[in-house]
């Protein structure tokens, strides 16, 4: 389109500037709004951040982090197995992909009470709900990855005498690595969402539960501090996964 005039600062300068303005708006609005609902940035940073010294908060962080890791690892494992099973052949693909997509399309939040019914209100239901969110993005990415393999690479390998296992090990697996990392990035966000939903719902420990309690007790500084920390964590995880994704798809 129209060429940008030369004197504009680099995009990241403007980006940082806008973020700073938003933080300033937060500060000013926080000072003038109801102290029951709002809390200026400065207060969140001073008194709010103190919650991370509280044993209860640390305990909740630890619980959620642990559930998240278990949920994520299980999501990757189950998603990978599901994805590879569906992509095993044209037949399994056409037969089971619709079933998988049908399950994926179910709004999972509606079945959250079922998870609590079956897995109890402890960590098990949180892990399970996290996995139910995380495994589909992995499976779908793996399937898309395998579908993207050039048939000629497989034909060529067969002509050179490759066994099924060799084709899997030398072609399928390396080929789907980038999609697997894309899936893992999406799954990490989805698993976090699932775990937090479960924690908000069952109200038994964890960060999700804590945000709910700070909200109900009208402790905005603590609530905002926790949300800010969680958001930062989510962005950090996402960016790390994005970096890995780029690293493993350099050959694309």
């Amino acid at each position: 389109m129209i060429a940008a005039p030369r004197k504009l600062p680099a995009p990241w300068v403007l980006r940082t500037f806008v973020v700073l303005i938003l933080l300033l708006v937060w500060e000013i609005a926080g000072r003038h709004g109801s102290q029951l609902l709002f809390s200026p940035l400065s207060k969140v940073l001073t008194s709010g951040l103190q919650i991370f010294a509280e044993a209860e908060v640390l305990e909740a962080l630890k619980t959620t982090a642990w559930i998240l890791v278990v949920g994520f690892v299980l999501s990757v494992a189950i998603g990978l197995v599901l994805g590879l099973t569906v992509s095993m052949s044209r037949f399994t693909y056409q037969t089971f992909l619709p079933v998988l997509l049908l399950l994926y399309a179910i709004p999972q939040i509606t079945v959250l009470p079922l998870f609590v019914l079956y897995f109890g209100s402890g960590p098990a239901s949180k892990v399970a709900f996290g996995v139910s969110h995380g495994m589909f993005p992995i499976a779908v990415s793996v399937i898309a990855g395998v579908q993207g393999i050039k048939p000629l690479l497989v034909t060529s390998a067969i002509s050179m005498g490759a066994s099924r296992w060799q084709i899997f090990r030398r072609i399928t697996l390396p080929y789907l690595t980038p999609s697997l990392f894309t899936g893992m990035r999406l799954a990490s966000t989805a698993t976090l969402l699932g775990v937090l939903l479960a924690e908000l719902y069952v109200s038994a420990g964890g960060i999700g539960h804590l945000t709910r309690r700070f909200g109900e007790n009208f402790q905005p500084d603590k609530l905002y501090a926790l949300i800010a920390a969680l958001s930062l964590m989510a962005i950090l995880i996402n960016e790390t996964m994005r970096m890995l994704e780029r690293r493993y798809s350099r050959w694309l």
Partner: protein
Amino acid sequence: MEGEALIKVDDVRHAFLSKTGEEEVLALDGINIDIARGEMVSLIGPSGCGKSTLLNVVGGMIAASQGHVLIGGTPVKGPRPKDVAYIFQESALLPWATILDNIKVSLEFQGVPRASRDKIARISLTAVGLDAFGDSYPHQLSGGMKQRAALARALSLRTDILLMDEPFAALDEQTRMIFSEDLSRLLANEHKTIVLVTHSLAEAVFLSDRIFVFTSRPGRIKAVLNVDEPHPRIPTFMTSSKFNDLRNRLYELLRDEVLAAIGKDRQGLA
């Protein structure tokens, strides 16, 4: 030549299901070809005449509906990686592996012990003049160099037979000329038996001992042209009157078939 043919195509006929899966399409009919050891043969014909299918039947990648192929006297029942190496239209190199690793993986597929893979791979890279590019990735090479790498891979498999499925199709004109010259020189030394599928009249004449001209679908052999010219062939062969006569005859033979093929397509469209 009877009896000592390395490749014997015996009354092959092949039909496949159309895209809708409802009707059978006859691709090849009544194909008989004997190819002697060390011979270089081209298959040429209009698009869709089944020449690539025949190549895949010879390589054991497709089972013919009828008839059979013998390699060294034994019937082909599947891929024969010890006897046959392929070069495809595209290089079919693994994009995440270096050229050297690509060749090593191919040797692994073929069942060559790990210890000797590196040495074999390097020798064949040197043979095609790519020894400086072993550590490069496919996307760092030009189209011509990638095909050269594919050639190195095929050579490293040390098979008697090389099947080439339009190996120059994706290359630009200058690259194809140089590549054909190199190929002719290399193959004269290696003493391989070669079957080449091509669209290019000049390539067929320049590289082959015999050219099989196919009719439009269903593919039948319409004519066989002999090219009496020793290998390796040099660029001046391309400007000789012998070359031009052969090329023109080939053109006449093909013209009718291509027109017929176009006519069939038009009917199909109407």
